């Protein structure tokens, strides 16, 4: 290496406010925030507003809308009256219609200490029911996938609003200076696409960083542009050092008063650290055979979602604030969307049951479940009446989601639907309420987490939302 060059590199390190040398040495996995906000990092960790019960969220999105009455919401009346014609409100046409009650083709069994009933679709999740907190009275807005997916992610069916992950990033920043605060694994391009993890009018750095994408095998999931195939790591470092040297001289000439330029220099160092460390985060070969097995990795049906869930656990460990794991695709009728052939629910159950249960067990075993809030669910549920003979239509009026960890009660069931499982009737929880509750767990008051845009203070929950206090232990 050219000696004159090295000298100036030392000079550079000594003279920047960033202290980049030290930061670059720190290991990424495990390094948690607070300490090094030497870089003027817009994602620096911020204190919560109220006492939090969770530090981060893992959101498991079941795209397409799994049926509640075939999974967690057992309804004897539905079974009994299967085949009967009953009047139901049709959300698509906004009128009451006669529909044919369609009993669940699956059997339900009691599981765990709590004895909660779970259908044969989810035997693995059955084993962890005592750790779950069910909300069986969910209701939401939007009858089609696009609007309902946007509503679930942004609190609006149509208007342009920041995604919940972006709100959380905005509210709390990152726990790990080497990684983005919000990551989304295998996100779909449809039904809202990037708006599901977009920042809308929040600052751009709160946008979710995409890892892989729907329809791409999770084993190929990467962060874009992390590697340059044309240059070796040494050549890259050499190039970066030269770049930073001319940046320094340009910075000096244009004026040290421009903090923006300081940030440019910092962004290159952070990028270089990500080049070194982010691949480590996604590298599942570091995990023990037992762990890989637990998640169903290398098994045909579960390999994909298993990898996603395991990556999520590694991200949680590394301090990523909001992690979304998408069970999704780019089709017009996505994943759980069985308008006919309800039996295809089996395929989706098979793909997700073991990985999700593994995630709960694994987080628990590592003590991470205590401060990680796991949320599972679809953008809506499905009707208890049949469609096309052997399918079910979308049902935003009553469905089940569950949470786990992060301060919510374990082995608890909140709310209920009517005798058919069609409409939430008791202790109803609207999607806005779920958002308010999630923010509350993170120590954020949903009425105070606001951002001023176009002359108005916006919130994730708009002017709605109620914290469901009953869910907390």
């Amino acid at each position, binding site marked *: 290496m*050219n000696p004159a*060059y090295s000298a100036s590199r030392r000079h550079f390190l000594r003279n920047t406010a960033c202290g980049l040398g030290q930061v670059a040495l720190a290991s990424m996995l495990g390094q948690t925030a607070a300490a090094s906000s030497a870089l003027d990092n817009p994602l620096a960790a911020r204190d919560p507003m109220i006492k939090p019960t969770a530090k981060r969220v893992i959101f498991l999105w079941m795209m397409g809308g799994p049926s509640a009455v075939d999974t967690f919401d057992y309804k004897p009346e539905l079974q009994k009256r299967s085949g009967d014609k009953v009047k139901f409100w049709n959300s*698509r*046409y*906004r*009128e009451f219609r006669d529909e044919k009650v369609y009993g669940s083709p699956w059997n339900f069994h009691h599981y765990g200490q709590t004895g909660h009933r779970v259908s044969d679709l989810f035997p693995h999740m059955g084993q962890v029911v005592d750790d779950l907190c069910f909300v069986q009275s969910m209701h939401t807005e*939007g*009858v*089609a*996938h*696009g*609007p309902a997916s*946007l509503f679930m992610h942004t609190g609006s*069916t*149509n208007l*342009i609003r920041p995604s919940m992950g972006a709100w959380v990033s905005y509210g709390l920043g990152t726990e790990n200076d080497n990684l983005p605060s919000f990551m989304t694994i295998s996100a779909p391009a*449809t039904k*809202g*696409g*990037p*708006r599901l993890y977009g920042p809308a*009018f929040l600052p*751009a*750095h709160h946008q979710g960083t995409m890892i892989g994408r729907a329809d791409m095998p999770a084993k190929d999931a990467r962060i*874009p*542009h*992390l*590697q340059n195939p*044309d*240059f070796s790591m*040494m*050549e890259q470092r*050499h*190039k970066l050092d*030269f770049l930073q040297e*001319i*940046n320094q*001289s*340009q910075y000096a000439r*244009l*004026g040290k008063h*421009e903090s*923006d*330029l300081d940030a440019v220099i910092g*962004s*290159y160092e*952070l*990028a270089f650290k*990500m*080049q070194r460390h982010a691949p480590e985060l996604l590298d599942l070969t570091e995990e023990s055979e037992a762990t890989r097995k637990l998640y169903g990795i290398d098994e045909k049906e579960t390999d994909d979602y298993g990898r996603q869930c395991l990556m999520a656990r590694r991200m949680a460990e590394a301090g990523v604030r909001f992690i979304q794991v998408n069970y999704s695709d*780019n089709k*017009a009728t996505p994943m759980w969307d069985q308008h006919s052939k309800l039996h295809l629910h089996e395929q989706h159950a098979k793909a997700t049951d073991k990985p999700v249960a593994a995630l709960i067990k694994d987080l628990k075993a590592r003590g991470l479940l205590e401060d990680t809030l796991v949320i599972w669910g679809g953008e809506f549920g499905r009707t208890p009446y049949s469609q096309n003979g052997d399918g079910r239509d979308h049902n935003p009026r009553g469905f089940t989601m569950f949470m786990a960890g992060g301060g919510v009660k374990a082995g608890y069931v909140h709310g209920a639907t009517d005798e058919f499982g069609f409409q*939430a009737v*008791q202790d*109803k929880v*609207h999607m806005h309420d779920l958002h308010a509750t999630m923010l509350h767990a993170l120590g954020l008051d949903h009425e105070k987490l606001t951002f*001023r845009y*176009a*002359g*108005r203070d916006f919130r994730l929950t708009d002017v709605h939302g109620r914290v469901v206090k009953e869910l907390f232990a």
Partner: protein
Amino acid sequence: MGLCALACSHALNANELSAEQLHFFEERIRPVLVTHCYECHSVEADKGKGGLYLDSRLGLIQGGDSGSSLSLGNPEDSLLIEAIAYDNPDLEMPPEEPLPDHVVEDFKQWVAMGAPDPRESTVALPRQEGVDYDSFRDHWAYRPIERPATPEVKDADWPVSEIDHFILARLESEGLQPAGVAEPGVLLRRIFMDLVGLPPSVEQQKEFEADPSEERLEAIVDELLGSREFGERWGRHWLDMVRFAESTGGGRSMRMPEAWRYRDYVIRSFATGKPLDQMIREQIAGDLLPYDSVEQRREQLIATGFLVLGPHNYELQDKELLRMEIVDEQIDTIGQAFMAMTVGCARCHNHMFDPISHDDYFAMAAILRSTHSSEYGNVNNWVERPLPRDEPMTAEQQAEYEQWENDVQALRDKFAENTKGETLKKIGGDIIKKAIKEGPPHHETAMAVRDAEDAGDYHINIRGDVHNLGKPVQRGFLTIASSNPRPEIPEGESGRLQLANWVVSEENPLTSRVMANRIWQYLFGHGIVRSPANFGGMGEEPSHPELLDWLAHDLQQEGWSAQAMIRKIVLSSTYQQSSQPRPEALEQDPDNFLLARQSLRRMEAESIRDSMLHLAGTLEPFEGGPTFSSKNGSEYNYKFNHPVRSVYLPVLRNRVEGLLSAFDFANPNMVATDRAVSTVPAQALFLMNSEFVSEQSREAARRLLEAETEPSDRVGMAFREAFGRDPEAAELEASLAFIDSFPRERTTPESEVETWAAFQQALFASIDFRYVP
């Protein structure tokens, strides 16, 4: 008065209630109200959701936004009963869960009894008041525009234009002086980047440095202002503002294959100097304007694509909601983009901070509701219209076309005769298929609007709920900015023409201020008002209100010519200052509100990309035309590999090209008048590792190797091209040291290219390339 009369006529005072009635209320009714309703509907909790207060008899009778909650004696006609019985899926109270059946029965019985209630209201119930327009007339944005006198200055040598007088007078009053003049090389690069978004060539640089005279500069500016590239650069600013995109976004994002026509219209309009007021008029109501030629008619129809381009969730199943969401999006865009008014805030209630009433909103909404801008179907579609042809059709073609017109009309008639949602969706689907998917034979089409068949006045939507109609509202404009806010609109017309004329009329003080501010913003990095889409109470105050008025007035006087205004500004001393602050200016005014210097600006995403292509010699000439080769195809897998100027890359709402998206490209879902300037690692990763930048670096390196043989000459050329200046001695030394020590054997021509490509890539990634001083 009316309220009092109503309340008084039912004034059963507590003394007049029978013991039995009182008992019934206290035992069966009051506890339920207190437990289940007061939280959201009581004066005491300071909450009157939906305008409804249930903690007094008056409140119950007066009701909320949806009207009185009670019809005394008639439980079946009482809104309160409907809500608690969960009879109306849009109005279910309490929202968490229904009350037990026996409680609902109690309420029915109570209403049947005449709702005996001893609770007298001692406080006035909060009500939504009208807007007091007069109290707002003094706000700077609503004042009529008058040409202010040019202020005196002490240093008479500095100003070269009236603009400079305004700036200098203020600086002098603050005890500051302007920065020095920018060096010729810096100034030339700034002007090129600002006006056309591409850097000057080395020859142009040297020529100007040899003769940096005012005449020479004027000639350069005039040449740039008359170029196609000017239209591409400034057209893009406009496209930001009008949330231009070529797919719908939303849930099921669909490509809009004809949207390019609107983009090209905007570029053409700027390149040819079309007045801004005419552009606005054409975009709101081009289909209704008179025309002299086929070309003009085509142009004006295409312009209305502005209204149709919005991001919509066409699969929303509640079709009335969808219709009003589209209207809302149009109002919001017109309001923010042209008048810097957040009109959309008044959809549910009077604007909280600005003089925009709920009525004003629905006066405008009714105009746009009278405009056909989406075809109804299970999944709706935007509207397309046939464009008139230059050449007449043959008789046979004419017959085919007429057949198509008849078929479409027949479907529309059938549509009009039906009311049932399901059938409508089916017929709507047929219309979409015939009118848009198949399209008219022998005609091109454009996204464009037309007046709706049910054009007319409409109603307020109570609390913005499209299914809850309130009082009727006459069509019209914002009261604060018009002399006649509710104009006469002829039968059968939408009122869009009147709307368009009002937006750019002299009585409207907003639009010319907004346009002047925006031009200023793109030449200084910030507007005189730093909230370019909000001139209301929650927006920023202008730093130089007189200057803003002078510019707005001048814009009107000069026939709304963007070029004339840009020329004036660029040739001013204010614009030509160095971006290096004097210490006292930095101390006193770090954010540069007073303009004691130019501001250092990050290049926009397009300029970064276009400049790379330009310097790599790979930029292909393209002057508009269709963007997509096919109508369909996934957004996700779209390959943005055309080496054309960025303004011509498809703007897909669910996927923006990589470099553009990394460098804060305008969010195509919303009025974007002020792009973010973020600095994040994703940008660094893109510049250091992406295939695109590597490829351009390699091509630029090849050009260096071909043009020069001496390494120092190559470095010199690279600095000139990328930064518009020669390298300093230390930079030259560091560059040569980098080439020498690069850890790759330079034994083949390819490895030589790779080494220089690494060097070039570092220049592209560096501050001097990314910023314009």
